[in-house]
């Protein structure tokens, strides 16, 4: 893939993420930057994401959701041809609580793709990726649903029909 193709894929994935995936829209997640097999995402701090009302710290589940999603985007950006994927497993290590009222960033890197499986590492952090809030490793099944990957047009048609 050349730079232009990456940009096209990134735009497609970013648009389909934000416009057509209800949960991603609900937590306000966005793709900030991307490269082959790599993605940088952000979730702005929001009151409905809080897991401990005493401290205002966001719920561990939000971090799991963000790492899962960032990992999935990195897999799609590592594939020569877009195809449907599914998370097989995800191991998350929580290093420190997120700081209240600060946006959450996540970087994901799909470092190996085989015929059936893709392997990904991800990190959630605020400003410094070397001071992580949480890290994850995951495996994704490729062509998980034996169906053609949803194109942006197909997603659009589906959502407007709903």
């Amino acid at each position, binding site marked *: 893939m050349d730079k232009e193709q990456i940009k096209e894929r990134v735009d497609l994935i970013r648009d389909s993420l934000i416009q*057509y*995936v*209800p*949960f*991603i829209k*609900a937590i306000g997640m966005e793709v900030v930057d991307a490269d082959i097999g790599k993605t940088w995402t952000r979730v702005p701090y929001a*009151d*409905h*994401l*809080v*897991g*401990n*009302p*005493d401290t205002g710290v*966001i*719920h*561990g*589940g*939000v971090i*799991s*959701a*963000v790492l*899962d*999603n960032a990992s*999935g985007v990195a897999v799609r950006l590592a594939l020569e041809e877009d195809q*449907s994927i*599914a*998370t*097989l*497993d*995800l*191991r*998350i*290590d*929580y290093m420190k*609580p997120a700081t209240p009222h600060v946006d959450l960033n996540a970087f994901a890197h799909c470092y190996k793709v085989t015929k059936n499986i893709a392997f990904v590492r991800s990190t959630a952090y605020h400003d410094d990726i070397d001071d992580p809030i949480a890290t994850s490793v995951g495996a994704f099944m490729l062509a998980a*649903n034996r*169906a053609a990957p*949803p194109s942006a047009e*197909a*997603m659009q048609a*589906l*959502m407007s029909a*709903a």
Partner: protein
Amino acid sequence: MEILKQAQDNDERVDLAALVEAIPYNKFLGIQVDQKGTEITTILPFIQQNIGNPVLPALHGGVIASLLETTAIIQIVYETKGAVLPKPIDLTIDYMRSGRPQDTYARARITKHGRRVMNVHVEAWQEEHTKLIAAAQGHFLIPALDEQN
């Protein structure tokens, strides 16, 4: 948390439904608690907002992970009668089936009750309990017994 502290002071079990209601993210996902005796089941009623794949459609994996984690936390709070929420150390989630657009249930079992660390196993299913959609194994940090006031 205030609600946990109050229950502890009164030497009562915390009202789990009220606890879930007091946590904004759980409320946002729509998580409910069903308690029959000492058996606790969490329920995640289907809502459109929790969809992660609109084509299948399927629940977002992160929503399922959040349900599993919350179920573990509730089980620990119930069994330890702690005044603070347990902190996740790690969580390993296996996804077996895609989450269909319907209600999801989860139940947790404490596999090892340590002094500071709890090892918990959690399962999530939909129509049939034997057909798990996901399971998780995780460690959670609790204040050591002698540190609790």
